[in-house]
């Protein structure tokens, strides 16, 4: 019987079973990872309290002026999944998507702080439609966002868009799955990159917050199931599952290819690493998380999962995605220091840990500066909601 595992076997093993060893980059860059400043605010509605709450948070993390004045800002929002599938009757913005009023509020404040241009970006599920069209299809009023500040525009980053070529972002060091990623020009054009996410759990990765939101920057003309084999396709077709979750196909050959084809083909192994790499390659300058209204249980409606539309009544913002997500996890009742096998990482590795190893940021709350409302005052226990749903189902 073999007594020792090869590194390949070790890597494969990390993709299976609870409590398996986290295999990060060959050399951890955690020691050089920056600390972040994170602010927490109570905000129960998307009404008049929203803008003051957000503005106060931004002030608490050092103000927006120094970050955005005279700069071009790209703000990646979250419009995940099949938009025609709601959770019950709740509109998407009250469960899975960044709320349009929250987007408008952030745009307004970034504009007020002197941004030269604000481009709101996202790669919505499997479509080349403009973001304006996607919003109209949800009965939003995109004009409210476009008029919230001067020089605001939208771009669907699922494909080449208004660019002439894709921009390449290499993982600075310690790449685990891909050495780099080709993205829409908007992510290179910007001086400041904002990730504006929703406070949610995720079926494959445990949580989806500001780090995971960056996953949606990847163009599906290259990383989608209908991507071109050699070159990016002209039109985006399909989701990203084939390339990223399960490695059932490769990205277009024009893009950086997977480092090692024998790596586990398991979403819980691959996605946290890909997300950490994307955050290292295209760092987030400002992370914002909309937890005013959200959904528990998963990132989109799975039908059979114990999910609920909830009203945590909280906003979180920070200068570092790992730190901001660590605070958000704590607000959700999770321990950001947990690894695979412990909630919420039942079957995945902890993307925050991997981000830390790539030098993106620190997940230990004590190593970051946290301002605003104490976390203990805004904890909204996602696990408790799930347990209640399951108990109610059992009774029924």
């Amino acid at each position, binding site marked *: 019987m073999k007594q020792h595992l090869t590194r390949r076997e070790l890597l494969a093993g990390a993709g299976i079973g609870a409590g398996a060893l986290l295999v990060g980059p060959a050399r951890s860059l955690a020691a050089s990872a920056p600390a972040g400043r994170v602010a927490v605010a109570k905000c129960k509605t998307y009404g008049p309290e929203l803008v003051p709450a957000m503005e106060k948070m931004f002030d608490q993390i050092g103000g927006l002026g120094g970050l955005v004045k005279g700069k071009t800002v790209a703000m990646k929002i979250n419009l995940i999944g*099949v938009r025609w599938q709601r959770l019950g009757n709740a509109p998407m913005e009250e469960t899975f998507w960044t709320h349009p009023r929250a987007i408008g509020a952030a745009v307004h404040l970034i504009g007020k702080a002197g941004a030269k241009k604000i481009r709101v970006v996202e790669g919505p599920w499997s479509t*080349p439609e403009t973001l304006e069209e996607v919003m109209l299809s949800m009965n939003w009023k995109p004009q409210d966002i476009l008029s919230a500040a001067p020089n605001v525009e939208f771009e669907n980053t699922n494909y080449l868009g208004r660019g002439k070529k894709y921009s390449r972002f290499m993982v600075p060091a310690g790449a685990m799955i891909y050495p780099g990623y080709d993205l829409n020009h908007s992510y290179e054009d910007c001086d400041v990159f904002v990730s504006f996410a929703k406070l949610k759990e995720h079926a494959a990765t445990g949580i989806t917050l500001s780090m995971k939101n960056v996953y949606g920057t990847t163009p599906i003309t290259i990383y989608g199931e209908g991507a071109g084999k050699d070159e990016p396709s002209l*039109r985006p077709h399909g989701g990203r599952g084939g390339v990223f979750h399960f490695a059932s196909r490769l990205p277009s050959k024009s893009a950086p290819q997977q480092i090692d084809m024998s790596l586990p083909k398991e979403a819980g192994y691959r996605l946290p690493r890909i997300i950490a790499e994307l955050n290292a390659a295209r760092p987030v300058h400002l992370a914002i998380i909309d937890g005013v209204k959200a959904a528990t249980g998963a990132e989109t409606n799975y039908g059979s999962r114990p999910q609920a539309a909830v009203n945590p009544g909280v906003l979180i913002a920070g200068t570092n995605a790992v730190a901001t997500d660590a605070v958000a996890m704590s607000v959700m009742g999770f321990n950001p220091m947990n690894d695979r096998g412990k909630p919420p990482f039942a079957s995945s590795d902890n993307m925050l840990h991997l981000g830390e190893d790539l030098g993106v940021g620190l997940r230990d709350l004590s190593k970051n500066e946290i301002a605003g409302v104490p976390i203990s005052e805004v904890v909204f226990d996602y696990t408790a909601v799930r347990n209640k749903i399951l108990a109610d189902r059992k009774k029924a």
Partner: protein
Amino acid sequence: MALNAESVPMRWPAGPLDIACREKAKGFTAETADVLRKWLDPDSLAIVQSSPVNCLVVSWAAGLPADADQPAALKPLIEKGRQAGFGFVGVIEGQADRPAAVAAAKAAGLAAVAMDGDAPAGAAIPVIPWNKAAKLKPAANSPVLGISDGVWPGIPQPSGQGGGPTNLPWVDSNGAPLLIARVLAPDKAVWIGFDPPTPQTTPPPQQTPPRPPQQPGNSADAYVLAVADSASYGAKWVISLDDQLRADLIARKPAAMDTWKKVIHTMVFFDQRKQARTYRPDGPLAILSDFAGPNYDAGEEAINLFPRIRQPFRVIARPQAAGANFAGLLAIYYVDRDAPDAALRQKLIAFAQGGGTLFVPSNWSNPEGTPVPAEPYLLFKVRSLAKGRLAVCKEDQPDPYDVVADIQNIISHRNDVLRLYNAPSMNFLYETSAQGKQGVIHLLNYSRRPGSDGPLFYVKEPHKSARLVSPEIASPTDLAFAPQEAGGAELFLPKLTVYGAVELEK
């Protein structure tokens, strides 16, 4: 009973010809032959008495030796059936001697015969043209038009097939050929034929959680969907039962009787709503084609796909386009690769000049207007034309899904009149009355399983009332409009297993 638009048909396989036609097929058993004999028994008519079925479709001639025995074998059934008020239609197919078969049908008292191709000259009884959808014969001298190649509606298994990159499953529906038949022959009744699938003999793969064992044969809901899919598109399915159900009905087995009662209940439901059959599909987009020859496939596929992207539409037959009213339309998709005549082209261009958008194929000669910038991925080059636009497809053989997606994209969701949520396995058909005061949204669930959440409609225009009718609920239910901040209102529906309709009143 004479054949007319109100005839309600049911396939009645019985006798030596059906046995001869099927005996070489895989899975044919002595039990099946026995059932085919038993359905010859006039007493078997009790199954359809007190049901809306009033027309039995029997095999009449197929060019086989058994043709000779079939009329005599059917005689007692036909005689008793006619006394009970049933009409009979004889199907003539294959290499049968058609004039002789028609004459024999007349002599036997059949109300009509059905056959593909052309009717024999001088046929003394109505001949229902019974052709594939692409070869429909709208000009035939018959009050009924037949479509012989309908599909068993549902989500095909295995369902790995995708209906486009929308994460919505592919659905098999007869909606497109039926809508085409309706516009090509607006004054005729349309019958569509398709048989239930042979029930699986091997157990399905292990399900998690395991589903309860199913009765052999097709489920009652599968039959309900087959009735509803045809009826909601204004046509009649020539009811056709699987061997197991026929055997069990003859044996009066309770489960089979329950299934049959459910089918009858659904037929009665639609029969009580005949008024809605006068409504016509409506929406801001019209699909215009002659739906003939090489144009058929593109036209049918557009009508198949627009429901999947939830785009309501009208259908205009090109031969009638000169007299068609374009009022209320925002866009017209001219499908055909052969050019319209000068008058129609002028009418279409005038529509665009007046503010509409005209979508045309790549071979549209000398396109009018001037080019305007458009997203490079779009399949259409967009040209400005007075107050409107002409959109010319860039490709000769475009992906049909991309075509409909880009048409919707260019029309803009700003102009959506309806949106459907929480219904990935459903299609809807929106129809309005001639004056536009009443509307109905037929909602069909091709999975035959209620979703995790009830479906939900966004309705742009204000209405006085909305109510849900369905064979699945005891009585109509009033629906409340939930007004939306950005305009319009939402209607929340309960979960539906197979079919429901929202009746709207302005």
